[in-house]
């Protein structure tokens, strides 16, 4: 009912009343409170439930995390100050999941990132969940369903990767796939930062893909999976045709293989032949903006 502080104040009030008025009668708690209410000009006893909020006119230090004011805490740096630009940390998963987690599902370790990337860069990456399927594992107990996700991530400046993840829930599968994609980032060569250097023919399982380099302003006119991958990589002008199987997972894997392995840079070709290479487009006609 009443807090210990209130009790103390009531006892003090009653003691004060008895001594000041020289009355031998002792007051009970309720009468003391009633008397305090009835006394003219009397102030309500202020009770501070939370330390630091009892003095009127003093503002709480809003740069520190407060257990009452900041119910969902934001990230802090070493000094304990808030970083208001960081996203909120939401309530954690139930404890059982921590036991079942394996390393691949954890968020990416910054030290393992390639090309000098940081976790802040990863947050600005484009993330596309291109394939989300419902798979089922047939066992003696029956069909066990599971959700599969294939996510492509990229920064639109030549760095991209893909990852696959499986879980009972779609959101968790997508998150696993995203983390794996962040782990498998590769750098892609682009001519003029907009297209591939030359036409590429690649076969992956039953999927044959022909990529064609195209002039500026052409656009990405290709299969919708290849289109998404090209926008994640930062390829702006390309034409592609998928022959044979158009299975989405294989089209995506074929595209990544072809664009990372099969491109030959003119500088490397010239070095092998012992020739000097000049980009006529840049030298005589000006570079493509």
């Amino acid at each position, binding site marked *: 009912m009443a807090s210990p502080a209130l009790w103390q104040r009531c006892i003090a009030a009653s003691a004060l009343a008895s001594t000041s008025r020289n009355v031998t009668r002792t007051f009970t708690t309720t009468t003391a409170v009633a008397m305090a209410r009835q006394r003219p000009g009397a102030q309500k006893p202020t009770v501070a439930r939370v330390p630091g909020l009892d003095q009127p006119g003093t503002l709480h230090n809003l740069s520190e995390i407060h257990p009452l004011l900041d119910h969902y805490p934001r990230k802090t740096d070493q000094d304990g100050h808030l970083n208001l630009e960081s996203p909120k940390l939401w309530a954690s998963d139930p404890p059982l999941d921590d036991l079942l987690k394996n390393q691949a599902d954890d968020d990416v370790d910054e030290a393992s990132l390639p090309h000098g990337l940081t976790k802040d860069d990863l947050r600005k990456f484009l993330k596309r969940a291109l394939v989300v399927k419902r798979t089922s594992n047939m066992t003696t107990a029956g069909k066990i369903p599971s959700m599969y996700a294939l996510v492509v991530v990229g920064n639109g400046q030549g760095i991209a990767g893909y990852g696959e993840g499986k879980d009972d829930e779609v959101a968790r599968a997508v998150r696993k796939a995203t983390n794996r994609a962040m782990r498998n980032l590769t750098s892609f060569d682009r001519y003029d930062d907009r297209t591939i*250097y*030359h036409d590429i023919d690649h076969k992956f399982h039953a999927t044959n893909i022909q990529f064609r380099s195209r002039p500026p302003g052409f656009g990405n006119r290709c299969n919708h999976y290849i289109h998404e991958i090209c926008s994640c990589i930062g390829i702006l002008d390309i034409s592609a045709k998928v022959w044979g199987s158009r299975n989405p997972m294989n089209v995506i894997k074929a595209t990544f293989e072809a664009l990372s392995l099969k491109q*030959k840079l*003119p500088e*490397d070709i*010239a070095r*092998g*032949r*012992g*020739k000097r290479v000049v980009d006529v487009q840049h030298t005589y006609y000006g570079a493509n903006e």
Partner: protein
Amino acid sequence: MPRHYDLCARVQNGFAARLRRIAVPDTKMNLAISNVLYKEGFIASVNRGDHVQPDTTYVPTTPDNIATRRLWLELKYNNDEPVLKKMSAVSKPSKKIVMKVEELQNLAAGNRSQFIKGLQPGEIAILTTNYGVLELRDALEKGAGGEVLCRAI
């Protein structure tokens, strides 16, 4: 007499097998195409020799040794990769390809011409013209068309 596609096959297979040098039949056409490959930087040298090894000193070709005469081409590799990936015949006995200057300009620009795909960055085409066996861009400089023998990349 071995045709130009015989040379294409030998050169391509030699590079694929990572050989140091290959011996091809010693003919005027083979010598001319090998010269173009040498000038373009695909092979390191062209030597005459016999079927065992290249000649160290000059050996004249006579009816006695003509059967053993070979052209030795020294192959080039860079970064653990062959410098020549593919060499294929364009004009074949089943379908001869003779192109004019305009069609050759199309090829050089990367566009298709006479059902032949355009040249990719780093690709060359060897053709025989009235001025001899030339690479495509050299033929365009001279303003000459001709039979497109092979292409190499």
